[in-house]
């Protein structure tokens, strides 16, 4: 199964081989960067230790680069949200002699297929660097393009994203890396083959070991293998197309209510898009967190809050949601926009309103009700919510208090309570 899955993933990513050892996306980033480092060292380029990373990158990118001893050079994005090509070229030139790698996510973390991606890869290669592609957005690539085809040398996959391993409430994940032939010798190995006579893993000049087990969290690999094997080649491509379609459909439904921050050159987004909530702070005193908490009253988990851009919500529906569900979520967002409009017009109080007091618990409507809006509006803001209510356990959590008074075990609570 490992052999077949490796082949499937290699073909999907457009690479020559895949290592199944890294057991998270961050672990995959670390493994890929260590392979790049080993590659440079094998060519005598020990001085190549500069890694260019866009400011919009996922936090694990620079964190992983730091773990490989790389010096990080940050480049910015332009007004369209794309990698600033001038800054990229300048950085590549300035650090040409010491350039190890670029880390890039494609489509961008802003949800756009940047036109200049091939030029970016070529620039890095011209200056002796390797291209690491963060595979978090593979859901917009599978069957349509691939990192290898685009020009990357290595990428990681998040099997717990694109390939259906469940999120588990915070793990487990798997982050195998796809790599081109010139990096294959450096793939991570494992001491168990030496000590136990187990199957050999890794290249012939491995940079080391990244996980305690040779195939990482092997037991969950069958989940991705099942997904790929049941969808088929055409099914996987349709999945990507539907992911893109669903995002564009939602953006269209919402664009007159909230500004969509970045779009591609033909006015579409990829598989995700960003809604800009910052203007609402000025017009209604509403923070993006208020919207996130109010969505709980509608029975929804908030989209990604304030990343990659502060004060925004990033929405990725995926291909697995029906039109009814997409519409229901959009209706919730539109209803919330009306609630915000009430604040803007003065019909609702700026401090004490449905958003600033969200989420609303069952306890709150059972006890004294002294708020300027109705219980009905608070906890049953739409028909479908009345039919199927999910109750938040708590009112809004106080984060500052929790960090100032750190208590991390049950015993500690008792000590505090008895003190």
């Amino acid at each position, binding site marked *: 199964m490992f052999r077949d899955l490796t082949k*499937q993933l290699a073909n999907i990513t457009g690479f020559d081989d895949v290592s199944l050892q890294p057991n998270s996306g961050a672990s995959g980033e670390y493994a890929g960067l260590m392979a790049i480092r080993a590659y440079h060292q094998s060519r005598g380029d020990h001085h190549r230790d500069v890694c260019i990373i866009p400011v919009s990158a996922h936090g694990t990118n620079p964190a992983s680069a730091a773990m490989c001893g790389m010096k990080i050079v940050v480049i910015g994005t332009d007004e369209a949200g794309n990698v600033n090509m001038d800054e990229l070229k300048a950085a590549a030139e300035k650090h040409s002699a010491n350039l190890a790698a670029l880390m890039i996510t494609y489509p961008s973390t802003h949800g756009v297929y940047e036109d200049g991606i091939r030029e970016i890869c070529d620039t890095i290669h011209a200056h002796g660097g390797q291209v690491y592609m963060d595979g978090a957005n593979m859901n917009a690539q599978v069957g349509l393009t691939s990192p290898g*085809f685009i020009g990357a040398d290595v990428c990681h996959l998040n099997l717990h994203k694109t390939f259906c391993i469940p999120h588990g409430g915070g793990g487990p994940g798997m982050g195998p890396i796809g790599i081109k032939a010139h990096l294959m010798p450096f793939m991570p190995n494992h001491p168990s083959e030496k000590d136990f006579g187990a199957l050999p893993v890794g290249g012939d000049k491995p940079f080391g070991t990244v996980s305690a087990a040779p195939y990482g969290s092997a037991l969950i690999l069958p989940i991705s293998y099942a997904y790929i094997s049941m969808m088929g080649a055409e099914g996987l491509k349709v999945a990507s197309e539907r992911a893109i379609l669903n995002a564009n459909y939602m953006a269209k439904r919402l664009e007159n209510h909230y500004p969509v921050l970045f779009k591609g050159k033909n006015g579409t987004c990829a598989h995700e898009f960003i809604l800009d909530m910052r203007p609402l702070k000025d017009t209604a005193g509403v923070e993006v967190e208020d919207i996130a908490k109010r969505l709980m009253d509608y029975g929804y*988990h908030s989209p990604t809050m304030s990343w990659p851009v502060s004060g925004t919500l990033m929405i990725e529906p995926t*291909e697995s*949601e029906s039109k009814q569900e997409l519409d229901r979520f959009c209706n919730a967002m539109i209803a919330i926009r009306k609630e915000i409009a009430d604040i803007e017009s003065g019909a609702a109080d700026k401090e004490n309103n449905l958003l600033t007091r969200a989420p609303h618990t069952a306890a709150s409507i059972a006890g004294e009700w002294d708020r300027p809006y109705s219980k009905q509006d608070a906890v049953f803001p739409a028909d479908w919510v009345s039919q199927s209510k999910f109750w938040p356990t708590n009112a809004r959590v106080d984060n500052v208090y929790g960090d100032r008074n750190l208590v991390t075990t049950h015993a500690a609570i008792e000590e505090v309570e008895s003190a």
Partner: protein
Amino acid sequence: MKVVSAALKNNNTSQSFNKIFSRQISVESLGPLDTFERRHNSASKEEAEEMARFVGFKSVRELIDATVPDNIKAPQALNLGSEEYNRGYSETEFLDMFKKMAGKNKVFKNYLGTGYHGTHVPQVILRNILENPGWYTQYTPYQAEISQGRLESLLNFQTMISDLTKMPLSNSSLLDEGTAAAEAMTMCSAIARGKKPKFYVSNKCHPQTIEICRTRADGLGLEIVVGDEATFDYNDKQVCGVMVQYPATDGSVLDYSDVVEKAHKGGMKVVAACDILALTQLKPPGEWGADMVVGSAQRFGVPLGYGGPHAGFLATTEEYKRLMPGRIIGISVDADGNPCLRMAMQTREQHIRRDKATSNICTAQALLANMAAMYAIYHGPKGLDDIAKKAHGLAKIFEAGATKMGFQGPANPYFDTVTLKCPSGADAVVASCAKAEINVRKLDNDHVAVAFDETTTLEDVDDLFKAFNGGKSTDFSASSLAPSVNVEETKFTRKSKYLTHPVFNVYHSEHEMVRYIARLEQKDLSLVHSMIALGSCTMKLNATTEMAPITWPELANIHPFAP
């Protein structure tokens, strides 16, 4: 489907009704109907086209063409490696095919240890957590108000680790023991503000732990020195820490108090990599001076799974809380003044500190940490003690029998792993065991190590005796030897209590357990309720057919180092 004839006669005789409509059966329509793609890609083709038009394009095709840049469009269709993979299996076709493939795995009886041990996953936890989408489809608990279920479970996990290790602060899981050890090494370096570039690693640590630390040190510009922890130079001011394994990889339980004293005097921190079940029996590292404790919670009811996923853990003192990697669950209050759990001190983590973060870790092992915590809750301290004593007892009986056959037992006390000197060499023993479908660990040319666990039975020990006897039955059995085997208290025997909190002491019947699990589940919003449109997280369908094989024994019970 071919319609052969639709002879509609416009008369009302009953005869004409007999042959009004007939067609041939097409072979295609008799193929598998449980196709998967339409279950996963939720909108119908018609709806999809309608949505494309709403966006302003004539078709889905046109929208995609306008979105994916021309210069990266793949020139040929995706090839998944075979005709069957390209076509796509139906759900039952896949399960049949994969069951046959998985059946090729030979599940030997394992005594390989080395950080991975057999365990019984309580069925109530298997079905209600690992096989329950209400427990496995939630996101990371950043939105605390709708995540109190798993937050409480992770707090239980932290409490469990803290109790067993006797270290006040634990995180809510790392990826595995080896990377947890590497993270602890990084902490030691950070404590020394990067001024002490060397780190000692005992050669009694598990091989994979040593390798991961070696690799990690390389990238961080640290140098690890692997050797005998008793003879390291503790006066070397370049060394930021030392790591020991407790019990050692060969099973020995050793007194590291000397190491701790010397290390601390020399300005070094001490990292103890431990076995979690052993800590129910042995004096925990928090009581003999360790600064950080790492390990794996796998043997608390999480299947071997050929290496994972399992929850690694790291625990330390309050002093180092800001250097701690990974997610930490903490207690706060909500707007109504009620206690509320949440993810604490996120400013240490990569999503905020980026390259200055304590670690790059993002996704951890929450589901498995939850399973391990529930295992401890279900068994309670007495149940865990019984499991540990049984493993130890069987190990002692095995040593007694092996000694009778001419093997030489270990000089040091041990918990569950017996190292034997083999008069005819280790290879012969390993081969004889393999013939009996048993895996034992070859330590070197003369020694084997045999690790006992929750799943070992008296009959298993008898099988071992036979295998160690070259395949011939012995005149004694585990049962017959038992009365003559003594288990003594040693200076290592644990005296302090653990898992005293009520949560570990009240859910011991299945009804209580299943209701506790359900109570927590009800507090968590997951994909069973509504879509979770988190950008960059791709919260798509986790289909049941995809999940089904992970609990098959032929996949779940394989040791990662099985040859």
